[in-house]
């Protein structure tokens, strides 16, 4: 039993679940924004990165860790709201490449500003729990207190989002605003506010992700922190379907596990290649994602 637990396969699955939780969170934040406003947010990694710098910068003034995390979330809410109001709102109803280009510009500018203010030198964040694997009979099991914390946090965030959307009045208004803005407005829903709220939630989910990534991936906090993670998150969201939160989370976790095996049994360069291959094949088979129902397009 011991040798099984510490075997390569189990270690890979556990490590893959941890990465997959991160990919799932990024995918979820992309889906939240896509469903609310039909914008694929290419700055989805950069906005939370900025919020994380703002909040975690307070650590150097000896603020307690969890207070800094709270500040990160507040900053993320503010950045999300501001972005939607100022940058995204003028783009509704424009050709679909306009929001893409604007969000790429936003990505460039956020990363440049972050590097100008805080430099490109990685800043290490303290992990709230030990990142060293638990050992069983002297062998690492592929799971540390911190990675358990990551998975649990991801599950809690995903659960909270699902609960909010499925079981609350606010969630109903959020869904209604995304699906039928005109009808919702007639029924008295403040659609504009709901769209802003969608962006705020998505950026906050992103901030949680960014903090986890910066504390765990041995990279520390850098302006480009989320570029690679964003690519994996997008792949997960596209494979699962940009319209399906459950699909995004599920395919994020599956992607994490598959890629962990690829990295372990092939090599680290193959990880992104396999991910790209998965994306191409799945888009050819199901252009709108594996887990979305096909819908006729209105002409």
């Amino acid at each position, binding site marked *: 039993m011991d040798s099984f637990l510490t075997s390569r396969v189990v270690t890979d699955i556990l490590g893959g679940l941890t990465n997959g939780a991160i990919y799932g969170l990024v995918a979820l934040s992309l889906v939240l924004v896509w469903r609310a406003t*039909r914008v*694929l947010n*290419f700055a989805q990694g950069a906005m939370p990165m900025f919020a994380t710098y703002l909040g975690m910068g307070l650590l150097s003034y000896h603020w307690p860790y969890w207070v800094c995390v709270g500040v990160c979330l507040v900053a993320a809410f503010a950045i999300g709201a501001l972005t939607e109001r100022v*940058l995204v709102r*003028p*783009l509704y109803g*424009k*050709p*679909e*490449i*306009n929001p*893409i*280009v*604007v969000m*790429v*510009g*936003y*990505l*460039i*500018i*956020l*990363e*440049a*500003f972050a*590097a*100008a*203010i805080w*430099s490109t030198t990685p800043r290490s964040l303290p992990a709230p729990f030990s990142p060293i694997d638990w050992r069983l009979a002297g062998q690492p099991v592929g799971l540390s207190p911190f990675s358990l914390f990551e998975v649990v946090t991801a599950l809690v965030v995903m659960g909270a989002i699902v609960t909010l959307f499925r079981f609350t009045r606010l969630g109903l208004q959020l869904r209604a605003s995304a699906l039928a803005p005109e009808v919702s407005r007639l029924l008295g829903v403040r659609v504009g506010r709901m769209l802003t709220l969608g962006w705020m939630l998505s950026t906050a989910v992103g901030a949680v992700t960014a903090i986890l990534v910066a504390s765990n991936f041995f990279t520390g906090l850098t302006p480009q922190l989320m*570029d*690679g993670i964003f*690519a994996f998150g*997008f*792949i997960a969201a*596209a494979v699962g379907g*940009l319209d399906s939160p459950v699909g995004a989370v599920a395919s994020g976790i599956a992607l994490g596990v598959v890629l962990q095996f690829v990295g372990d049994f092939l*090599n680290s*360069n*193959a*990880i*992104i*290649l396999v*991910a*790209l291959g998965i*994306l*191409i094949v799945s*888009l*050819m088979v199901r*252009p709108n994602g594996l887990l979305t129902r096909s819908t006729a*397009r209105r*002409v």
Partner: protein
Amino acid sequence: MSGTARRGALALVGLAVAVALALVLAPRASDAIAAAAVATVTAVAAFVGSLPAVRAEHPALARAALTVVLIDVVVFATAFLSVPTDFNLATGAGMAIVLLGLSFLTGASGQISIGNGAFMGVGAFATAIWANHHATTPIVVTLLIAVVVGALFGLLLGLPATRLRGPYLAGMTLAFAVAFPAILSSFSSWTGGDSGLQLPNPVTAPHWLVGLFRAGTPTLTTDTLWLTDIVMVVTGVAFFFMANLFASRTGRAMRLVRDNDVAAELVGVPLPRTRVIAFVVSAAYAALGGALWTLLNNSVSPATYGFALSITILAVIVIGGIGTISGAIIGGIVYAYSTNVIAWFVARTGLDPQGNLASQLNGIIFGALLIVTMLFSPMGIAGTVRHLRQRRSQRERG
């Protein structure tokens, strides 16, 4: 008919003046002959291209003539510019080809690629790898090979593009741009890993060109001029082909796909094929630009073709005017001179050139311009200029 005669007379007078100037100003007979030859070709091309009959009946011929005139003027000018300026212009011209491809993709399909820096890298590395295995291949053949390899990569990634709507293509090409460095290091025995590749035989100027210069002119000067002119000619040819494609039946079909794909399908335009062609052409143009960069630098490094380049390409073409031909030229010039302008700005404002802010100014300015352009004038500089001219001519007509 008198119009033709007048144009002919004008071309002859211009030619006579140019030849006279060449005879008076050129220090040696060989210089005068070269200048006179350039002037003759330019005058003939300008005459042919300006004929109303040619412009109406044979637009492709008129475009060819315009291309010859432009190439002549640019090639003539590069002979008098400094080595760094020539190099800078040629780099911008290579970029302009890439921008043209991206402009075509968006102009033809309404979609956008965030991965053209990686396609550029495909062409750049294909050139270097081929040259390292077949050192004697003529430049033209090497460039064509790079274009074909770029097109094949484009086809591979473009296959799902046939069915993609919305932002999926943008996201997929972004993933390709992020994955490209890993692709390079996966095949490090070919690509040279982190250090990249050198060209075994750098391109050198032919004897007749060296003969035009004063004895003792550094080979750097003549070699750079020769390379610059090769790049300019290739750029001219690439623009000529694209201008024809824009105006052709295929080009019109593609614009219909962009504006209303359902209507396009109803009138019999094959949507999947059209989308794939647009994507493959844009990838091939990107590869050509990258191949020219490899020739210019004599080497290729994987660091050049990272994610940042793909984003820069997108920024520059949007600022120039996406979906237009002139936008690609403007974008190429913006790219060539952005570094100089920013350095000048930094020196002017007294910022610490080694400081964080100065080193990030490029990103801040490009990012801001990108957002401002899209929010307030989505057609970029080219589109805005065209719009202003249309308004003025409308006002003049009353």
